């Protein structure tokens, strides 16, 4: 038990930070609320340091098989930590969140990071369900945190209804899987399925039902309906976090579920179990998700909705790698998630900077952005970098990410799927490049110039853009780290 705490140290640090922030809220006056983001930032940064020191430890299961520690969980904790840090920087000083109670917002945001970390480490279905609900419940609250805003309330209502149904279906699916296999742990389920024959229909039903919960978290078809409405209604700094953090956590648990419970190690490596046609199911879901996301994004007027549908499409690309279900797929998904974190948060931050000053979130607000003064010209270049990277054009990091994703699919022999994925990237080119086009070739609707925003926002957006280009040119370092990641 005592040595288990070594593996739990990063989570422990964030838990203590959250509890401390809750307590502080009772004792500190309304005027010194500025301390909350600082403490949350320090807590998450300390978590990342602890995570670094725990990374050489060997893989292990701890807390009576409830949780697992391995290299993949270390990498995911870095992703969550980075997303949390950037989300704190973005939210601190945003005009939209001025009226929101800072104490609540940053405490809940830190707790959300904790929930995502627990989800990425879960090995027992109870742990998976509890941490999934922790992430969901906090997301509902933060989505509705804009008091007196109709859009925010409506978004959180839609979110809580879809989320409640999805998690209910998932709980029912888990109960069927438990009845079939008599085991609640991922590896226990895999062990049972290797040794015994089970009813194909029942197993397929339970996997489909469990996919409802995971599909809801990563916004895959048919559980994507909440996504555009919630992204549009939620405060933009939280939307930015929602589009990368919980989505990454969803993919972490998807990887664990499919590699832990539904595949087996054979002489030629890891293979999906043969009883049910997993590649066909995931391939179908992935194609439907990316095609719907890309086609719906074509006709959006609001930038937030465009980015919402684009995030659905990106979930589709990452699901594609899961079809392969080989070691390269793990590398591909984690590499893509780290790159996606940079470029998507960057795109949202540009939208926040522009939207805060020009007072709109429509795509039309980008019209002639490059002609709105020197800072706007610089910001247009940065936005172009993010848009090209999201499309997957070299030399941006998005291209390398897609290269690894499609590489794992091709290696497993699913050529048709890889071709459909690439065709979808071509479709996405249209709506990403349209944003670039109107920034440079249209005239601004009024004569307002963009002023320089606060230093933290400006430096973050430039750092994200530089990293996006840097990883597109020198990806070897990150690829080596991610390539060594082993599940379980």
């Amino acid at each position, binding site marked *: 038990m005592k040595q288990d705490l070594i593996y739990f140290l990063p989570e422990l640090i964030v838990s203590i930070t959250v509890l401390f922030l809750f307590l502080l809220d009772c004792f500190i006056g309304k005027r010194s609320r500025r301390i909350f983001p600082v403490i949350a930032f320090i807590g998450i940064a300390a978590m990342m340091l602890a995570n670094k020191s725990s990374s050489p430890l060997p893989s292990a299961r701890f807390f009576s098989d409830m949780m697992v520690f391995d290299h993949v969980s270390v990498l995911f904790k870095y992703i969550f930590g980075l997303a949390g840090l950037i989300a704190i920087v973005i939210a601190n000083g945003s005009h939209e969140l001025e009226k929101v109670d800072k104490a609540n917002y940053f405490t809940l945001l830190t707790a959300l990071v904790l929930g995502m970390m627990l989800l990425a480490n879960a090995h027992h279905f*109870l742990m998976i369900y509890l941490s999934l609900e922790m992430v969901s419940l906090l997301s509902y609250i933060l989505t509705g945190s804009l*008091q007196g805003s*109709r859009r925010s309330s409506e978004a959180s*209502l839609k979110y809580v209804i879809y989320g409640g149904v999805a998690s209910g279906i998932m*709980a029912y699916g888990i*109960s069927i899987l*438990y009845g079939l296999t008599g085991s609640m742990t991922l590896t226990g389920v895999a062990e049972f399925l290797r040794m015994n024959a089970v009813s194909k229909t029942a197993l397929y039903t339970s996997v489909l039902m469990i996919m409802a919960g995971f599909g809801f978290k990563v916004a895959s078809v048919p559980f994507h309906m909440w996504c555009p409405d919630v992204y549009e209604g939620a405060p933009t700094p939280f939307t930015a976090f929602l589009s990368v953090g919980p989505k990454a956590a969803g993919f972490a648990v998807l990887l664990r579920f499919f590699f832990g419970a539904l595949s087996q190690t054979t002489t030629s490596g890891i293979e999906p179990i043969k009883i049910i046609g997993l590649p066909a199911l995931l391939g179908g879901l992935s194609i439907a998700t990316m095609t719907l996301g890309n086609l719906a994004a074509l006709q959006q007027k609001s930038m937030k909705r465009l980015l919402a549908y684009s995030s659905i499409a990106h979930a589709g690309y990452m699901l594609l790698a899961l079809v392969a279900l080989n070691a390269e797929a793990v590398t591909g998904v984690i590499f893509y998630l780290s790159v996606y974190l940079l470029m998507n948060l960057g795109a949202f931050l540009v939208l926040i900077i522009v939207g805060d000053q020009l007072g709109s979130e429509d795509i039309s607000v980008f019209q002639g952005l490059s002609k709105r003064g020197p800072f706007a010209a610089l910001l247009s270049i940065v936005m172009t970098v993010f848009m090209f990277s999201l499309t997957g054009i070299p030399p941006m990091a998005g291209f390398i990410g897609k290269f690894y994703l499609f590489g794992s699919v091709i290696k497993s022999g699913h050529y048709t799927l890889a071709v459909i994925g690439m065709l979808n990237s071509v479709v996405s080119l249209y709506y990403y490049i349209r944003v670039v086009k109107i920034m440079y070739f249209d005239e601004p609707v009024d004569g307002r110039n963009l002023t320089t925003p606060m230093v933290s926002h400006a430096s973050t957006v430039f750092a994200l853009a530089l990293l996006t280009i840097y990883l597109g040119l020198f990806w070897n370092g990150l690829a080596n780290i991610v390539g060594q990641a082993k599940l379980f």
Partner: protein
Amino acid sequence: MISINSYLFVTVLLFCLGLYNVITRSNAVGILMGVELILNAASLNMVAFAHFNGNLVGGGIFALFLIVLAAAEAAVALAIVVSIYRQFGTIDVEEATNLKG
């Protein structure tokens, strides 16, 4: 002696009623009641399977946590419904539609 099939019949019925409720109702509280039915179906399933598998711990504990989580989710959801009522003057989900596209 009641067989496992009887339990499964009841839980499937509960699950389907819950899902039907969610799909057909437009009252937000009505929908939340449907979600509760689905969660109760899952809890009952857990306990029944735990009993018939001879392994009482896993399923029983899961059912306990499901009850707690259902309460937590209801608390959050009802708070959101109150906020919807303040903004829109109704809790009909078909009338609270500002976001479209």
